């Protein structure tokens, strides 16, 4: 700790508990777990500033994400300006895109506060670019992510081994992850090399006192009822969830399933919980179980969409869902998602559609009940919250008019908080257009002139209908093969029937085609499928929706503002009559509150953390009044989710407090026993009688820098093996001059078999090393077996296998192609670390320089531009026609994927040859929309 306590540091921590935490942290190292919304980042920035102002230090901030970096950077600059501390240097960011090794070294030498990506920091620590001893302190954000095998834990271990004096503070604002497993808090503390946890739940005495002592924020709760159709859909979805869960229970006996209830299924991470429970037996779970787990995620998304999307968008989303869950080729009825067979699924799709439009009951159809209605009529149900929102706004206006508030420093603006950007956009559009009337509505008199979304909804429906026609073509084009494989005959009929229009009373069950009955049909397999509406109907609906004059006058494009002619058209808004719509963004919301200084806040969706933020805001500024309106759908999933989130956080804190009470003192002794470290260097290969000589080198392994995403380097280091991070072209790990290892997790293995990368990698290893090895590493908690065969009973004929080889056959092919290749099977990264040290026993140490140079293209040698971004690289490889060579050429010759996508076939051909260029170009430029659908349909079969 520095001695500059006397330096004038101005802090911005108005509340008592914040000051408490700050003081505690200045005094000693600890882990602070604080309830969400209590202003964690504010404490962090103040703490950092207090060190920053003192100057002459090197502080590392790890675990911060992009937004937090921006926030902390701004806040530090602001603090520095306020306290006018000459020595404050603010925050410096270190992430890959920006700086080279040289720049980094210079920056570290200068000191200051650094936010560094973990992957870079670990390499810098290990390669000696940054000496841990020079670091004066480390601040860890998101401490809940520091599990034993994580990079952050690795960083902290190196830091603590070399540097005992520097400070170390960890922060977390999500208590839940600290409560799973056996003595989770103790384990976490061990990973963090800390002894003392400090817990600040909302019910902490000081917190409660600071927030409730003075004037509290005024909160008005509004329970908005859902419409009947919404409730129907919600119930139907819940029924599907329930059915899926019981399906899971039925298929997986012998697993603890107490938690598998409808209630917990609504949580964000229910599917991850199930996944984790099933992992040890994943190889024994059936295809169906896996599908059901996937379905649960999907159903949860649908539930969310039901409440946040408007009826048209919701229906559109369901259309996409349905098309995407079309059965894969060669599948049978068994392979379809089980929930699609339920009546409830039918309810979901029909009701969703009924919210948008229905058949118009005309005179003709009353007489003949069997006939399909002749035309369609828009229904366009509006979300109940919209009306409520309009009402609140009106009320606020009145309120502001009738009781002009005594002068305070609030702005008088209205802040509307909602779940995400999409809802934001939706609300913005609604508020802009809610008083616009389509001409048709004016004829109905008597109706009170209330706000309505009809203009917006009509526009959306028009978009939807034009989208729908192209969409059915797309999905037909994309999934026709699959469908054909299942029921070829129906497709035949569809093809032949296309020319002549079917008689109107004959309902045709055709998926996605332009013709067909109005209601949702069932596929031959029995699952729900998309029912197309007849062209004529769509046309009539379109006619009905033609923009009226009033509508046409409105600005067409809402939502996207091109920022041209900024100076001419834009000016600063008067903050007093402003409605700000903003999505929840974690700690960033604090900024929003501070900047808008709203007098009224409308919470469009419930969010526990935001309520606390308002409490903090309110208590921090005694001179501002805030009135909060809090909206939620009564009896909805939204409400339940909110309540259970609050409860879970409280439970988590209670458990943590209990565990802290029983926690044993842990003493970290990370350093290696000096005797052992000497013995390790002794060369035992001197056969009898020779003089014992200590070799100079401790065991070391050369590791490719890209491998630091896995936990293996950390575990190797824990076994006191020196890690040398290098940029390797051949292999991932070099253990001895002869042994080179390519590590593959089972997932990677499947992937790199599929795109042929593994073959090339092994080929390169064979060329340069005497003992090339393939390490197949299984996950720690997952089953130690390969996936079961696709089909054991099918005869394994050569032709059949060559067509769709499974993982086992590919392995066999690999070993046959490379007899010298050895395979290491490891059940977990821990096991791998053991195997590595076993393999290294009695062998020479590898030479990093040689390892780096092997396999390097001589043309590229010394080229700084050798590192590639992983995701874009993977995207490139997923394009048909791109093999290793083509990928390399494209990566070196072009800038980004966007550039490749926009190149013409000729340009591509110059780089990669005509054949590959043709395939790449066709991949990007195949057009689904418009009139080419029919040709596509035909051409698809040729590929």
């Amino acid at each position, binding site marked *: 700790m520095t001695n500059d306590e006397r330096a004038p540091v101005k802090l911005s921590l108005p509340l008592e508990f914040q000051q408490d935490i700050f003081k505690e942290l200045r005094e000693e190292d600890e882990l602070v777990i604080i309830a969400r919304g209590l202003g964690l980042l504010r404490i962090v920035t103040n703490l950092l500033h207090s060190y920053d102002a003192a100057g002459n230090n090197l502080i590392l901030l790890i675990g911060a994400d992009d937004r937090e970096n921006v926030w902390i950077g701004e806040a530090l600059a602001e603090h520095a300006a306020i306290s006018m501390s000459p020595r404050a240097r603010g925050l410096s960011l270190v992430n*890959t*895109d920006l*700086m*080279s090794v040289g720049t980094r070294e210079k920056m570290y030498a200068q000191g200051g506060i650094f936010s560094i990506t973990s992957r870079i920091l670990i390499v810098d620590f290990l390669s000696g670019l940054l000496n841990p001893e020079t670091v004066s302190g480390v601040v860890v954000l998101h401490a809940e992510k520091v599990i034993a095998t994580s990079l952050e834990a690795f960083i902290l271990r190196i830091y603590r081994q070399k540097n005992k004096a520097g400070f170390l503070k960890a922060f977390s604002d999500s208590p839940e992850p600290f409560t799973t497993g056996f003595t989770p808090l103790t384990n976490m503390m061990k990973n963090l090399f800390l002894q003392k946890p400090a817990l600040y739940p909302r019910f902490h005495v000081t917190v409660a006192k600071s927030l409730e002592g003075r004037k509290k924020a005024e909160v008005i709760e509004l329970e908005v009822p859902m419409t009947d159709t919404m409730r129907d859909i919600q119930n139907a979805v819940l029924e599907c969830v329930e059915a899926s869960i019981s399906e899971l229970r039925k298929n997986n006996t012998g697993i603890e399933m107490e938690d598998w209830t409808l209630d917990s299924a609504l949580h964000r991470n229910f599917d991850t919980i199930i996944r984790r429970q099933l992992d040890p037996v994943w190889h024994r779970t059936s295809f169906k179980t896996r599908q059901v787990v996937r379905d649960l995620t999907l159903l949860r*998304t649908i539930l969310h*969409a039901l409440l946040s999307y408007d009826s048209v968008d919701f229906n*559109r*989303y369901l259309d996409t869902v349905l098309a*995407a869950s079309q059965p894969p080729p060669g599948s049978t009825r068994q392979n379809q998602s089980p929930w699609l067979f339920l009546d409830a699924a039918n309810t979901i799709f029909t009701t969703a559609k009924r919210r948008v439009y229905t058949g118009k009951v005309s005179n003709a159809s009353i007489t003949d009940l069997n006939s399909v209605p002749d035309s369609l009529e828009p229904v366009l149900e509006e979300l109940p919250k919209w009306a409520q929102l309009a009402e609140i706004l009106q009320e606020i206006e009145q309120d502001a008019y009738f009781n002009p508030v005594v002068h305070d420093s609030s702005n008088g603006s209205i802040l509307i908080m909602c779940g*995400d*950007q999409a809802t934001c*956009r939706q609300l913005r559009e609604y508020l802009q257009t809610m008083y616009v009337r389509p001409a048709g509505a004016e004829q109905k008199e008597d109706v009170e002139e209330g706000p309505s979304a009809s203009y917006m909804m009509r526009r959306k429906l028009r978009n939807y209908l034009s989208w729908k026609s192209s969409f059915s073509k*797309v*999905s037909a084009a*994309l999934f026709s*093969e699959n469908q054909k494989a299942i029921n070829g005959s129906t497709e035949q009929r569809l093809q032949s029937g296309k020319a002549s229009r079917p008689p109107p009373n004959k309902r045709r069950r055709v998926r996605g085609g332009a013709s067909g009955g109005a209601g949702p049909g069932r596929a031959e397999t029995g699952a729900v499928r998309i029912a197309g509406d007849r062209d004529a109907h769509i046309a009539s609906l379109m006619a009905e929706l033609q923009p009226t004059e009033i509508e046409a006058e409105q600005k067409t494009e809402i939502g996207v503002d091109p920022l041209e002619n900024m100076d001419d058209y834009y000016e600063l808004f008067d903050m007093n009559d402003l409605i700000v719509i903003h999505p929840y963004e974690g700690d960033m919301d604090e900024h929003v509150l501070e900047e808008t200084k709203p007098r009224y806040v409308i919470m469009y969706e419930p969010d526990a953390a935001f309520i606390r933020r308002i409490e903090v805001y309110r208590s921090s500024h005694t001179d501002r009044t805030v009135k909060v309106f809090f909206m939620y759908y009564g009896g909805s999933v939204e409400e339940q989710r909110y309540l259970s989130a609050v409860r879970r956080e409280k439970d988590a804190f209670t458990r943590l407090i209990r565990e802290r009470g029983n926690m044993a003192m842990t003493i970290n002794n990370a350093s290696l026993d000096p005797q052992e470290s000497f013995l390790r260097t002794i060369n035992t290969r001197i056969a009898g009688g020779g003089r014992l000589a200590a070799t100079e080198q401790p065991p070391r392994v050369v590791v490719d820098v890209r491998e630091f995403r896995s936990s293996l380097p950390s575990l190797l280091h824990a076994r006191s093996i020196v890690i040398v991070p290098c940029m390797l072209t051949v292999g991932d790990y070099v253990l001895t001059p002869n042994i080179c290892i390519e590590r593959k997790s089972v997932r990677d293995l499947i992937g790199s*078999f599929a*795109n*042929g990368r593994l*073959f090339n990698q092994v080929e390169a290893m064979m060329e340069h090393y005497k003992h090339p090895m393939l390490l197949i590493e299984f996950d720690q908690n997952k089953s130690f077996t390969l996936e079961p*065969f696709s089909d054991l009973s099918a005869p*394994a*004929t050569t032709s059949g296998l*060559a067509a769709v*080889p499974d993982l*086992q056959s590919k392995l066999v*092919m690999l*070993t*046959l*192609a490379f*007899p010298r290749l*050895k*395979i*290491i*099977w490891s059940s977990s990264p821990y096991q791998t670390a*053991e*195997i590595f040290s*076993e*393999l290294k026993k009695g062998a020479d140490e590898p030479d990093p320089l040689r390892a780096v140079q092997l396999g390097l293209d001589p043309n590229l040698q010394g080229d*700084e*531009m050798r590192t590639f*971004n992983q*995701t*874009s*690289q993977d*995207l*490139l490889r*997923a394009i048909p026609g791109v093999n290793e060579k083509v990928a390399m050429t*494209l*990566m*070196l010759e*072009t800038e980004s*994927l*966007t550039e490749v*996508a*926009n190149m013409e076939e000729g340009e591509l051909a110059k780089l990669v040859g005509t054949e590959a260029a043709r395939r790449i170009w066709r*991949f*990007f*430029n195949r057009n689904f929309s*418009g009139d080419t659908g029919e040709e596509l349909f035909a051409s698809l079969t040729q590929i």
Partner: protein
Amino acid sequence: QALPSRSGPSSILVSPRQKGNPILNSVRSAAWEYSDIPADYVLGATTCALFLSLKYHRLHPEYIYNRIRDLKGQYKLRVLLTMVDIENHEETLRELSKTSLINNVTIMLCWSAQEAGRYLELFKTFEHAAPTSIRAQQSTSYSDNLVDFITVPRSINKTDALGLVSNFGSIRTAINASPEEIGMIAGWGEKKVQRWCNAVREPFRVQK
């Protein structure tokens, strides 16, 4: 009448030592016959296999070394077909990994008799097959390619892929679309939009 065999016999040669091994029951698609050979199975002109059950290995750790020694460096590819039939396999497998390096054998693990039999069949079946199917990408249908491509960035699923293409008509347009436009598609939340746009826009090479 028969075509002259290019190399080795057409059936799997089985050592009489393996009589009664249940994995033989699972060898169905390839013919096998007993023959007097040093290895347990001969799967091709240059390929042989030894079978080892870890349960047995724990009782007689020296057995396998004797058998490997008996092979006397014959055969190019010497497979050690290892059946994992015990729970605490870690230490044994570590030792075998080391052995495989020293004695030049390739370990293949299997977890059931069926799987073991299947490996024998596969080695025989692919004896002369060229490794084309692991060498380069296999062409699949356009829709699969498309979905594979779009779902490369994390958390983007098939439904999203379909939504994206159906909205923009072609992949090229989808790549050129601005984040705001993509954000309007149902199901595409902020995170997904950001991941997709980053993946597509970011330069291939890391700028140093």
